[in-house]
Every structure is written in C-alpha cells, then in structure tokens.
C-alpha cells in the first residue's frame, strides 16, 4: 500500500469520485409527488402567460391531434421537483458530486445548460418518475465566476417503464472569484475642508448635497461659498439616491488603477436637481442610454473611503 500523499490532490479526489458515481449508473427512478395534473398545469400557464389552448381545453387538444388534454412539454421537470422540504435521495448522482465539490471548496453553484428532449406529450393522470446518471465532470476551469467544475447529468423521465423525456443538465460548481481588480488601488480623492462633508457622508451611507441655508440653493461639487447669494456657511441635505443618466462615457483605455476595463462613468442628474459624476456599475455598457433611471450604490473601498457609484434602478 502506498503511503498517503502529504497533501491530498484535490483534482484526483474529484475525478476519482466522479468515476465512482459514473460507474454506479442511473439511480433508482424517483417518483414525483403527484401525477401530472390539471391544477398545476393551470398554475403554470397562468404564471408563464402561455395561452396555448391544448393545455386547458380538451377540445382544442383534440383539434390539434392529441387524444385529449396534454401537459406543456417544458413542465416535465416540474413533475418531479423535490418541493419545499425536498431532500436528494442518497444515491442521487448530482447530490453526490455536489457534496464532493463542496468539500473541495467549490461551494457555489450556477446552472449553465439545460437540454430537454420530449419523446411524446404526457397527459393528466400519468405518474412520472425520474432517473439520473452522471455524464461528465470537467475541470478545474477558469471561468468569469471563478475556478470551477462543470458537472453534467442526464435525467430520464419514465411513465411506467416508458421513457417519455430526457434532459442534459449542466451546472458550474465554483469557488467565487476574488474581485477582478484590486480596489485598494483606486485613485483616491483629495479631501478638502469644503468636500469633507461629502466623503464623510458616503462613509456614513448617505449622499450629501451642499445646501445654502441663506437662499436654499443646492450645489455640487461642494465649495466654500454659495454661487447664488455669496453666503459662506453652508450645510447639506441628504439626497434620495435616485436620478437619471444625463450623459456618460465608456472608458476602454488606458488602464485605471483599481478598475476593470471597460467601465462606464455617468453624469447623473439627481432628482434634487444637481448633477454628479460616478461609475455606473452592473450594466452592459451597450445598454446605457441617456435618461436611464439609476440608483445609488455606495462602494466601500476601506474604512476611509466609500465611493458613490450608480446602477440601473430596479
């Protein structure tokens, strides 16, 4: 017997587990809670807004060449979902692989592909069961989300012994990536006696607009004296954090410390009336338009600096 390696090789552990789960083949078919039934079909067509009459009218279904009412093919997976308190069976190949990858530190999961093939339409009253086998485990791969493994399973739905539908299902099981750019490197603002109120505000979680108590004028960026009346004892109001894009640029080049290219810089017109610059995040640069409603997204860099950013309102 070989001596255990000083450090277990994670890749070999995962591939070894995958081979064992694959070799076990398809797990025992797991029956759905309920037979294919009309109330759930009705809920589904209502929620999805699907007006196809063959799911709700026996007459329309017959006219379309079916023997009677049929269930939407895309509902096939619904019939065998685990439900609110569902637990995977102990021989479920996907559950087994998820456990192995969790242990190895690949704790996050996202579905990437779903390919369903329908051999025939199923009808209310049929009782479906689903069997699953592990098809493939591929990795480790560097992805936009982080390092991860693609796990592919194949499901077969049976009505009695007859396979009625199949599905290839692929998930990415990954370690969430560290932020792409080192935000500690961001260019830091020069904070003056006039602008301190603004940066103290963002650090405290609010967006402050300088306000003239003498004449009521709001102004940004903050300065020593009111441009309208000359008063030099300003205070501030807290903005709602809502606005619209007044103008913007998409910055492609050159590199900016602490930023991943390209990024969007927007001049945002606040609903209070002043305009403010900031990065527009969580948006495809191609989708930015003048007038786009945005809301404040404060980005904490460290204890001293919180940057005001914007994202599409929602």
């Amino acid at each position, binding site marked *: 017997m070989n001596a255990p390696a000083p450090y277990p090789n994670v890749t070999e552990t995962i591939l070894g587990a995958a081979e064992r789960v694959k070799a076990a083949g398809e797990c025992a078919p797991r029956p759905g809670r309920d037979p294919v039934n009309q109330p759930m079909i009705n809920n589904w067509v209502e929620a999805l807004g699907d007006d196809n009459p063959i799911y709700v009218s026996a007459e329309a279904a017959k*006219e379309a060449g079916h023997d009677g009412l049929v269930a*939407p093919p895309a509902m096939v997976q619904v019939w065998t979902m685990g*439900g609110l308190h569902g637990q995977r069976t102990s021989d479920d190949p996907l559950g087994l692989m998820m456990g192995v990858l969790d242990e190895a530190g690949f704790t996050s999961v996202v579905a990437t592909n779903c390919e369903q093939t329908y051999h025939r339409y199923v009808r209310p009253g049929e009782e479906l069961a689903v069997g699953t086998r592990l098809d493939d485990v591929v990795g480790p791969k560097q992805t936009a989300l982080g390092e991860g493994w693609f796990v592919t399973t194949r499901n077969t739905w049976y009505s009695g012994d007859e396979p009625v539908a199949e599905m290839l299902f692929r998930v990415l099981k990954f370690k969430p990536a560290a932020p792409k750019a080192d935000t500690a490197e961001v260019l830091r603002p020069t904070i003056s006696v006039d602008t301190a109120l603004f940066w103290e505000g963002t650090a405290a979680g609010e967006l402050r607009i300088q306000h003239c108590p003498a004449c009521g004028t709001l102004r940004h960026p903050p300065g020593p004296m009111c441009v309208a009346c000359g008063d030099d004892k300003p205070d501030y109001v807290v903005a709602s954090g809502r606005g619209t894009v007044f103008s913007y640029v998409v910055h492609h080049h050159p590199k900016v410390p602490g930023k991943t290219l390209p990024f969007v810089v927007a001049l945002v017109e606040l609903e209070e009336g002043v305009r403010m610059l900031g990065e527009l995040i*969580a948006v*495809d640069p191609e989708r930015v338009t003048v007038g786009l409603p945005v809301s404040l997204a404060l980005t904490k860099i460290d204890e001293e600096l919180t940057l005001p950013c914007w994202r599409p309102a929602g």
Partner: protein
Amino acid sequence: MTAVGTQLPELLIEATPTFVVSTALATRDFQDVHHDRDKAIARGSRDIFVNILTDTGLVQRYVTDWAGPAARVHAISIRLGVPCYAYDTLVFSGSVTEVDGDELTVQVTGRGQLGDHVVGTVRVSGVTA
C-alpha cells in the same frame, strides 16, 4: 412553408417580482433566491432572479405563441447567460435556422438589461405560422 431566416415576432416579458415568484412556485422551485430578496442579496445577487425551469418554459411559450396550437415541441436546449433579476425586461427574438421536412429548428434569444440572459434552440414540427 416556413423558410430558413423567417423571423419570429418579438415578445416582451416584464420580470416583475410577482412574475419571478409566481413562476418559481408554479415550477415547484422553492430555492430562496427566487422569492426572498434579503436571502438573494446575502448570497451576492442584486435581487431575486428568474429560475431555469421558467426559462425553458418561456422559450417554449415564445415558439408556440408563433407556431400555433397544432405544433409539436420535440426538444428545447438552453444556455444561460447573465441573470434576469426582478424589474428587468426580457426581449425574446428568434428565427428559423433549419428546415428538415416538417421539422424546424428555431434559434431563440432572451435579452435583458445586463445582456443575453438565455440563448437556445427549439425543435418543433406542425408549425402553422
């Protein structure tokens, strides 16, 4: 006879929170990220988001809305892109990419505010469009 290149009419889906929650529950998907905004944010999402069973359903609906009730759907393959969060709007577009006798292959894209959310193909026959 439907030819390769035939465009399907666009379909807009407003992914309101009610839509996200009601479709998740109608597909018996009780994962908290599809109905509990606080949990979704705690897990790093911006908001609750549409589940994959709904995407398959929407792609099917998009094609059968056009293909008519006599159509038979044989296969739906989808690949997921960026998430579709609550308050997003999905715009579905599609075109016929293959014709094999009575059976068509339709390519479908559902695009949201952040980019392509779902891209897929549907094999369908008996199209009366």
